[in-house]
């Protein structure tokens, strides 16, 4: 059986912009328009527009919602107010990761989780299983298209279209209002390391808002950005991508995400296993590294130390900002110190690299 790929409401816009489309998590998505490097630079120096409508959205509501949310997430929803959002992991009892997500707090009884496209079905089923009669869990992915506006010019571009000054939306806060004539949830969040916004709106409004943003950004040199540059931008920041730095077999502590795991006075799924791991120490840990020899590290390449297997590369690329091969990977904790030399096995050749501090890209 061949399942047809899903198309976002911006599919026609991508086609007319000359995008190269690829399959991603069951969706037909733009991987690039004008070129990965040019798009990457536009986001670092000006701004870019991303169609991220493939992301899943799950709404949790009801009188039991607060307790439910606290039970499933490693971060602590009590630390944010209504109108704020928070990055968190969702874990299995053994500490492996179900997904990483941003949770939006409308109020104590209502939340929206933005989950990875590849995981949305799995996360929804898993949440349903944990929910009691006082909590409603709904897959509302079909109700939303999502557009990300990212880059230092984002505020300027959004200013004329939003019904409030975008500068008034603080980092990890959100505003519900109008973009042009379209109702939208607009958060000061992103996956690029730049200032920017993520805009959730009705699928039927997506094409109009996309075009309005492209027009508003014209004098700033806005470009549409594909998944190729989305990946290099997040990689330069050392941000994890599920399936690479996170999985059912990797805990948040191993992935270096301990600050999103609140173990004090909490009671969430996976807490016991993570507490134990926090005390005993991890057996593998995520590091960033930069190539010293020629070559580009890629996911699943072997990492060696002293000629012996010592880990694997989880993500790698040629960094458009620093012009070098960079990657992240899991190694034995003895190799995690900055400056430690490791070998990356590139086509049976050992290429030297050194462990460096994340992020790779600093302003």
């Amino acid at each position: 059986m061949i399942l047809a790929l899903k198309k976002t409401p911006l599919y026609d816009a991508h086609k007319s912009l000359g995008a190269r489309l690829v399959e991603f998590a069951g969706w037909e998505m733009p991987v690039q328009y004008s070129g990965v490097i040019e798009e990457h630079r536009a986001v670092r120096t000006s701004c870019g527009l991303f169609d991220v409508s493939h992301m899943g959205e799950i709404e949790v509501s009801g009188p039991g919602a607060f307790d439910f949310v606290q039970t499933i997430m490693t971060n602590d929803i009590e630390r944010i107010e209504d109108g704020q959002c928070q990055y968190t992991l969702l874990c299995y009892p053994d500490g492996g990761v179900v997904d990483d997500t941003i949770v939006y707090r409308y109020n104590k009884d209502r939340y929206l989780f933005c989950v990875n496209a590849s995981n949305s079905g799995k996360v929804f089923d898993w949440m349903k299983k944990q929910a009691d009669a006082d909590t409603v869990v709904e897959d509302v992915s079909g109700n939303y298209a999502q557009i990300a506006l990212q880059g230092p010019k984002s505020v300027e571009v959004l200013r004329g279209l939003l019904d409030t000054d975008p500068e008034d939306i603080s980092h990890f806060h959100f505003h519900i209002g109008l973009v042009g004539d379209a109702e939208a949830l607009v958060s000061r969040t992103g996956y690029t390391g730049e200032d920017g916004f993520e805009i959730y709106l009705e699928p039927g409004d997506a094409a109009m808002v996309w075009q309005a943003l492209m027009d508003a950004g014209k004098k700033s040199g806005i470009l549409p950005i594909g998944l190729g540059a989305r990946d290099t931008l997040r990689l330069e920041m050392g941000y994890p991508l599920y399936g690479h730095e996170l999985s059912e077999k990797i805990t948040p502590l191993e992935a270096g995400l301990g600050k999103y795991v609140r173990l004090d006075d909490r009671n969430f799924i996976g807490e016991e296993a993570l507490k134990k791991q926090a005390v005993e120490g991890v057996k593998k840990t995520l590091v960033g590294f930069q190539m010293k020899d020629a070559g580009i590290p890629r996911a699943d390449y072997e990492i060696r130390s002293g000629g012996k297997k010592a880990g694997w590369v989880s993500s790698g690329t040629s960094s458009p900002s620093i012009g070098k091969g960079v990657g992240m990977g899991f190694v034995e904790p003895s190799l995690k110190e900055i400056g430690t030399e490791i070998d990356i096995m590139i086509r049976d050749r050992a290429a030297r690299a050194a462990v460096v501090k994340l992020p790779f890209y600093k302003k």
Partner: protein
Amino acid sequence: MEFPKDLKYTKEHEWVKVEGNIATVGITDYAQDSLGDVVYVELPQEGGTVTKHEPFGVVESVKAVSDLYSPLSGSVTEVNDAIIDSPEAINEDPYGDAWMIKVEVGNDSELGDLLTAEEYQKFIEEEK
């Protein structure tokens, strides 16, 4: 997209220019366009040998790794080291500055298996 008539082509998207017993090899305009921004190239050593249909090197875009397949068998007489330092030349001038290797042809009969510009163009139309 250009496919010069004086070149021969392969289904693996390499081009070949034959002059006497020396064949110059590179990748086609279609190949560079499909790859996107090329950021890394690995080529064989001068004096080494290449074998028809076997990988002789690698090109990497930001996103992916692709093998280069030799259109012919023979010994490598010259390598274009300039593209190792400036791999973007492969996107900019695939048939000119970004030639990759020159091969002394070991077996003339292999030349007959190469595609003409028309045949290659027809092949990529069908592949799309």
